[in-house]
């Protein structure tokens, strides 16, 4: 396939000094940034046509460029939308354009709000997911795992591996991430051992997660893929919701993903990673402070009442301080555990789910989905069906093994 063309619709990237970073991220995944050509008349007409009045001329230009993409005057394979972080008007325009492009053009679209500290590395996973959706639709259409494959998910906190054969999980390994390479070897060994399979018998390997590029080389992987695509596939596969819409939420150790999925293919998605107070790390610290194993925190939370605890901050440091203050006033551990789960769910809801189209069912995946209080809190917040599929903690590894089987036939 030819180079993927990503239409950039943005305000401020050249003045923020990050345009080069955006183009570098695109280049690293075999894509090229293009800018829709617009006449002055089209800019002046854009507000009325789009139905959104804005004061900044560069935002009017964004509207005109979005219209150009949707009306087919600009040919593109995917769309990147960007505005400055902390610009309220920019955020409104960014969100509305993302919805507009998604609904009217069907093109894969991502959005991002940048600061001068945004780097190509920050954008890489998002850009990789964007181009994958644009160029690998046939691979993403795969619904059945065939042959003998392995998947490895090198996460920031844990490394997971699975061995699958003919649509069944034979064995898995789940270890804490220390050295990326050693942790992956360890997890795969456990998965192979549990499966009773020799490593040489594996026909295809897929890797994902933060360490995917390193592992891709060392394991000579057939598939090296970011987590957005892999988790989407893994989630709908394990939840048996491969057709139709779904929303995948993965609260990770280092970042969170919220993905709006249609027939297993990611549509709108967001990755959060600014505040640790909305991550699995916060729940780990809470468990430690309560003196329970992380695996016990969820059950404890289910027996508690989050509303009895005052949480004054989302920050991981001040959030823990609130919990400590509550404990010192005699609060029940169950209520504190519930408050911690509710706080994480609330942050994901307020900071990320506003940016994706939340459609039922909601499939929660990743290790944190096993902390029962978290999916419960999400259900309470959204008043929607929340599914935690079997092996939800292995989502990336399962998705990788599933997609890797596509390479056996190729």
């Amino acid at each position, binding site marked *: 396939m030819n180079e993927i063309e990503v239409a950039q619709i943005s*305000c*401020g*990237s*050249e*003045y*923020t*000094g*990050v*345009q*080069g970073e955006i183009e570098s991220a695109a280049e690293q995944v075999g894509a090229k940034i293009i800018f829709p050509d617009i006449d*002055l008349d089209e*800019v*002046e007409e854009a507000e009325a046509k789009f139905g959104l009045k804005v*004061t*900044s*001329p*560069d935002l*009017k230009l964004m509207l005109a460029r979005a219209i150009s993409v949707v009306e087919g005057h600009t040919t593109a394979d995917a769309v990147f939308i960007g*505005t*400055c*972080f*902390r*610009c309220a*008007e*920019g955020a409104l325009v960014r969100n509305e354009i993302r919805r507009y492009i998604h609904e009217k053009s069907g093109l894969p679209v991502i959005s991002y709000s*940048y*600061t*001068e*500290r945004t780097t190509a590395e920050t954008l890489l996973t998002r850009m990789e997911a964007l181009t994958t959706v644009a160029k690998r639709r046939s691979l993403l259409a795969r619904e059945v795992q065939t042959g003998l494959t392995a998947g490895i998910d090198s996460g920031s906190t844990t490394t997971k591996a699975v061995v699958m054969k003919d649509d069944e999980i034979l064995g898995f390994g789940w270890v804490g991430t220390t050295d990326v390479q050693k942790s992956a070897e360890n997890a795969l060994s456990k998965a192979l051992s549990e499966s009773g399979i020799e490593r040489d018998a594996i026909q295809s390997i897929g890797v994902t997660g933060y360490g995917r590029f390193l592992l891709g080389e060392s394991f000579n992987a057939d598939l090296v893929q970011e987590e957005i695509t892999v988790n989407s596939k893994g989630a709908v596969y394990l939840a048996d919701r491969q057709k139709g819409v779904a929303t995948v939420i993965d609260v990770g150790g280092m970042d969170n993903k919220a993905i709006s999925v249609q027939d297993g293919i990611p549509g709108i998605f967001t990755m959060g990673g600014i505040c640790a107070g909305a991550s699995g790390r916060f729940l780990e610290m809470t468990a430690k402070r309560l003196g329970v194993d992380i695996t016990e925190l969820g059950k404890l939370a289910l027996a508690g009442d989050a509303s009895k605890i005052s949480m004054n901050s989302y920050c991981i440091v001040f959030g823990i301080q609130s919990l400590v203050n509550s404990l010192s006033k005699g609060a029940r551990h169950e209520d504190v555990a519930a408050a911690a789960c509710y706080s994480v769910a609330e942050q994901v809801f307020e900071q990320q789910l506003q940016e994706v189209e939340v459609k039922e069912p909601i499939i929660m995946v990743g290790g944190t989905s096993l902390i029962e209080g978290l999916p419960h809190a999400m259900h309470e917040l959204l008043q929607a069906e929340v599914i935690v599929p079997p092996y939800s903690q292995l989502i990336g590894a399962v998705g990788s093994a599933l997609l890797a089987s596509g390479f056996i036939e190729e």
Partner: protein
Amino acid sequence: MNIFIYPSNSLILYDLVERFGHKPLAVMQEIRKKVTTAGIDSPPLNITPEDPKHGLKYAAVEVPAGVRGRMSLFDQLIGDAEAAILVEDAPIGFGCMGCQRTSELIGFLIRAKRVPILELNYPTSDDEARNFVYQISEFLNKLQGGET
């Protein structure tokens, strides 16, 4: 005298100021300095992530980086301004600042300098256009150093 113009890339205002013997202060001059600086490769404007940090002189970190990056371009122009012509409600074709928040801040900073300022609305008829040019010529002629 150094005359700050707003919109700061308006070729019409630039030309009028020059015709009356003054030096227009326009953003194009600052962008030219950037793009012709050897050794910096940050296309399209050669603004690097360091520039928004220079903009902290005018706006704190909670202000979008794009505003601060723009402000770093305007630093020299605001500092050199001895008088200003500000035109409000102009169509994009007359001149465009891109970011409304930046425009608001620049307008405030220029007014706060207490230099002579001519503030005009963009003309919408032939008569208004003639009066628009007349007011600008009167303003520029009265300034020290202008052609009479």
